[in-house]
């Protein structure tokens, strides 16, 4: 199967399953964020939808007139962008800083980062564990959730595709990795 026809291509996944959390849609999450004075954390394990929710929140906040700065840290690159200190000096009440992967920062680096972002109107982070900022949303996954996503992207199962329950357990609840495996299964067709 060609990449552009693969139902599990990353673009299709993102468009088909824009994150809707069990506690409400993005508007509801923004309302909760406002109640937390725009400083909060999205918490959850790998592949649970934290990054997607953070990106959706950033889009919604831009739509409401805020300027958002999105930074991503991963296990391959744990350093903040070299431009961050300079851009942090220009932050104001209309700026919302979004940091994906806050757990990658050491405690000292986190305190330093939070201090630099103090002038921003908001600070939203994703993390694997609670504790860095007040909890905004706790993301979780289930085999049922994976099944719903898979059926939305590929209503008719194909021969050779693993069962969603099996996929979910083999990837230890990481929905993103489970969907990547399905991409490979469909690519081989």
């Amino acid at each position, binding site marked *: *199967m*060609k*990449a*552009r026809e*693969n139902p599990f291509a*990353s*673009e299709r996944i993102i468009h088909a399953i824009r994150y809707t959390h069990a506690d409400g849609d993005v508007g509801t999450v923004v309302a909760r964020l406002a109640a937390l004075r725009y400083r909060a954390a999205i918490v959850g394990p790998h592949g649970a939808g934290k990054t997607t929710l953070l990106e959706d929140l950033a889009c919604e906040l831009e739509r409401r007139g805020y300027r958002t700065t999105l930074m991503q840290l991963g296990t391959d690159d744990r350093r903040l962008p070299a431009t961050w200190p300079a851009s942090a000096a220009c932050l104001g009440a209309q700026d919302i800083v979004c940091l994906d992967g806050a757990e990658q920062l050491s405690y000292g680096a986190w305190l330093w980062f939070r201090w630099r972002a103090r002038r921003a109107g908001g600070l939203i982070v994703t993390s694997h564990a609670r504790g860095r900022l007040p909890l905004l949303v706790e993301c979780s996954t289930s085999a049922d959730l994976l099944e719903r996503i898979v059926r939305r992207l590929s209503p008719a199962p194909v021969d050779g595709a693993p069962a969603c329950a099996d996929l979910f357990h083999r990837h230890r609840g990481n929905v993103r990795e489970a969907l990547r495996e399905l991409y*490979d299964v469909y*690519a*081989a067709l």
Partner: protein
Amino acid sequence: MSTLRIDLGAPRAFKPGETIDGRVSWQVDAAPQSAELRLFWYTRGKGTQDVGNVGSVPFATPQTSDSRSFTLALPRDPYSFSGKLVSIVWALELIVEPGSNVERQEFVMSPTGAEVVVGESAGEPVRV
């Protein structure tokens, strides 16, 4: 209800450097503030999506119900391409604002007029 349309005529396949002549039309509920046609390519596949913006045609003083012709020159590359891991897809997108009024029309750009295909699916007819 809004209706947007991009008419490229047939077939929807072009050679590198060729000029696209077409027509766009729209009917939207609210008076539009801007209307623009964008030419771009993007990747679709397993990894992070990449996008290359090539050109755009803004339409001055757009009306609620309107129709305009356009001409856009294609670059020499990249060709429309498909493998198992990634495809390069060319497209035109009509955007009428305010609101989420967007229409996308995909097409093929290559020297042969057909998508370049690698892997086991090579030789299949192109479907856009």
